[in-house]
């Protein structure tokens, strides 16, 4: 039984078709990397999975919630599907600890003590226990992104969506964030990751989705084979460009 299931999904912005005939099933526990050139629809695809973008055609079911039904309770779904953004988006008016405990307290109705204990465990896991009482602006980008991952984990989600989580970071901070992501991957979390980190996609991922102009051109369950030689000429072209860099 798949956790996320797209059937002939389409999405347009006015006349422009950002997603075309998407068919994709993601199973519980899978680590899926979405790669492709800029503007190919990677973010759009990812953001449909928690309803940040609505779809116009086809059917999308995530964790038994039918996102093609306009009456779906999107807040219920979002309890179970976290998201990590390129620019972290930590709550600027909240401390690190509050960033992590806010949703568990308000949405899951955990009491403050319980939420804080859990948050401290997560802070320890991401190596930032001593930053609990600072504000996001006092942290480096890499630290903020690790907090953002902890914030998602605090909801005990079934899946976490990552939209280029390391693209806004200085090179020396990327490793720390990727290490946390690897640790999360090891905990049997379902992860969908839009990324330019080909190393992560190859070593940690179970599956590669290659997108171009709103379509899934290649869907490989063998990342190592994909990176050796993709089947699609467009994917070959793309890889030779990014790896050539």
């Amino acid at each position, binding site marked *: 039984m798949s956790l996320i299931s797209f059937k002939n999904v389409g999405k347009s912005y006015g006349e422009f078709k950002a997603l075309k005939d998407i068919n994709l099933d993601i199973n519980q526990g899978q680590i899926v990397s979405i790669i492709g050139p800029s503007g190919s629809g990677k973010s759009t695809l990812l953001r449909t999975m*928690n309803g*940040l973008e609505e779809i116009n055609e086809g059917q999308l079911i995530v964790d038994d919630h039918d996102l093609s039904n306009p009456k779906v309770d999107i*807040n219920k779904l*979002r*309890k179970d*599907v*976290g*998201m990590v*953004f390129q*620019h972290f*988006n*930590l*709550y*600027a*008016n*909240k401390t690190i600890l509050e960033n992590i405990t*806010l*949703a568990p307290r*308000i*949405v*899951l109705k955990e009491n403050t003590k319980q939420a804080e204990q859990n948050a401290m465990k997560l802070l320890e896991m991401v190596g930032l226990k001593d930053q609990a009482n600072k504000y996001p602006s006092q942290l480096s980008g890499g630290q903020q992104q690790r907090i*953002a991952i902890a*914030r*998602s984990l605090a*909801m005990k989600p079934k899946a976490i969506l990552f939209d280029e989580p390391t693209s806004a970071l200085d090179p020396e901070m990327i490793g720390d964030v990727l290490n946390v992501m690897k640790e999360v991957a090891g905990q049997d979390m379902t992860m969908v990751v839009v990324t330019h980190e080909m190393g992560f996609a190859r070593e940690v991922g179970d599956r590669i989705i290659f997108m171009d102009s709103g379509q899934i051109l290649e869907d490989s369950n063998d990342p190592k084979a994909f990176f050796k030689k993709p089947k699609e000429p467009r994917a070959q072209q793309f890889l030779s460009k990014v790896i050539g860099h």
Partner: protein
Amino acid sequence: MNWSGAYTWINLNYLLQGLWITIQISVISIILSSIFGAILGIIRYSKISKVSAFVGFLVDIVRNLPLLLILFFSYFGLPQIGIRFSTFSAAIFAFTIFESAMLAEIFRSGLEAVDKGQTEAARSNGLTYLQTLRYIVFPQGLKKMIAPIVSQFISLVKDTSLATIILLPDLMQRAQVIYGQDTNYMIPIFILVAATYFVVNYLLSLFAGFIDRRLKN
């Protein structure tokens, strides 16, 4: 110029009572218009299709009318359709309408200035629209709004002097009564009234600075 004649105890006391009216009018209008302005601003920000558009339409109309017109309307116009106010209430009614519209716009643009990523993160975290507004967007927007809100309050305090025209016995109107008796009182009274408005508004901006620092801590 007759300073001692202008500054008699009787005159000072008379002005003080006017100041009290000015302060009452200001405070009540500030409280009411903050509530209505926040509600209208949030509705406009929220883009609840028709409702937000309608609120936007009303707010834009009121913002583009002269305050004096609204004041005349509430004092002279409304009684024509059977709604009768005391001078005091008519002044509060007019100031509240005008200030609510001005504040609604400040609230709306303050909320819109909050990074959209904050909303996306909160919604993705499972918060509802209203929870996101309450815990994330509104508090962050409020920090950006403090300065324009306070300058709006300061203009309100100054604008209450317009109510002189409907004979509200506020500070300005009482000043007129006093120098109406003797033009030699005019300059001393002007100076005193100017100093009083300055002190009130200066205290207001000091208070705003205090709030601003507390919010930014």
